């Protein structure tokens, strides 16, 4: 462990502080465009007629469509200690389908800060949780993302 932590009290003050909520309409055109962009021909996402006969009675969004419902700004900007950032990964949990016509309210908060020494020098792992709540007040899904911030300019090399 380094003698001096890169995690400051100022950073810790961001833990569990939610971003400004943003509400999105799940539009048919946006869902179909997203399915086309990822190259997924599943009729539940693209074929309104077929989807109407299916288990949801209409079009639903592909699971990772939620990625396009971008959270609002944090109430205060997080003080990044290093200039370089990598997307470490993502973990979705799904509780309700995302249907065309839903209204989804998105909030995001940093839930964990961890410091590690590795091949990129000192790295800060920032875990954030994004919550997606539908118009019925149901928690439809969560996404946990891990960002890796580091000083070494050589990235993944």
């Amino acid at each position, binding site marked *: 462990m380094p003698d001096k932590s890169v995690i400051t009290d100022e950073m810790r003050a961001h833990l569990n502080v939610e971003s400004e909520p943003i509400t999105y309409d799940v539009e048919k055109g946006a869902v179909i465009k997203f399915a086309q962009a990822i190259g997924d021909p599943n009729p539940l996402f693209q074929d309104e007629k077929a989807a109407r006969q299916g288990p949801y009675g209409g079009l639903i969004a592909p699971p*990772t469509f939620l990625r396009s419902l971008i959270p609002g700004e944090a109430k205060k900007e997080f003080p990044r200690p290093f200039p370089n950032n990598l997307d470490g990964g993502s*973990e979705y949990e*799904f509780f309700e389908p995302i249907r065309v016509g839903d209204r989804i309210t998105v909030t995001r908060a940093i839930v964990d800060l961890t410091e590690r020494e590795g091949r990129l020098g000192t790295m800060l792992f920032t875990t954030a949780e994004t919550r997606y709540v539908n118009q019925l007040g149901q928690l439809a899904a969560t996404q946990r993302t891990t960002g890796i911030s580091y000083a070494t300019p050589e990235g993944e090399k």
Partner: protein
Amino acid sequence: MGQLYFEDVNVGDEVTPIQKNASSQQLVKYAGASGDYYQIHYDDGFARNNGLDGIIIHGALKNAFLGQLVTDWMGPHGQLKKLSVSYRAMDFPNEDLVCSGTVTGKRVEGGAGIVECEIALHNAAGKATTPGKAIVSLPMRGA
């Protein structure tokens, strides 16, 4: 699209693989559809100035490919419960990618048929650049 049933799945079974090859055009379409306009995904000069060997595929697009792997396999009456991925290495456009997986567990939980899988996206050299896990709920034949 066929329907997969809980009774038909065994630990060790293969998740039917799918193949992908992302063109630079697809990366631009994904940038527009997802709202991720970071230039390392479509501006070659920008990517090289950032120390990359060229434009790279969005991690979230690889996540979407792995989502399709699972939703295709489970069929329309399956429900995706959990999808996790880690980005271990970068992937590049115009490369043949394979998404595949293996069933690692199954159990009945509250009357639902829960199946767990290890999944991964492999690059053209066969390296699992993007491993992950999925949990699905499958319909039961008797139900």
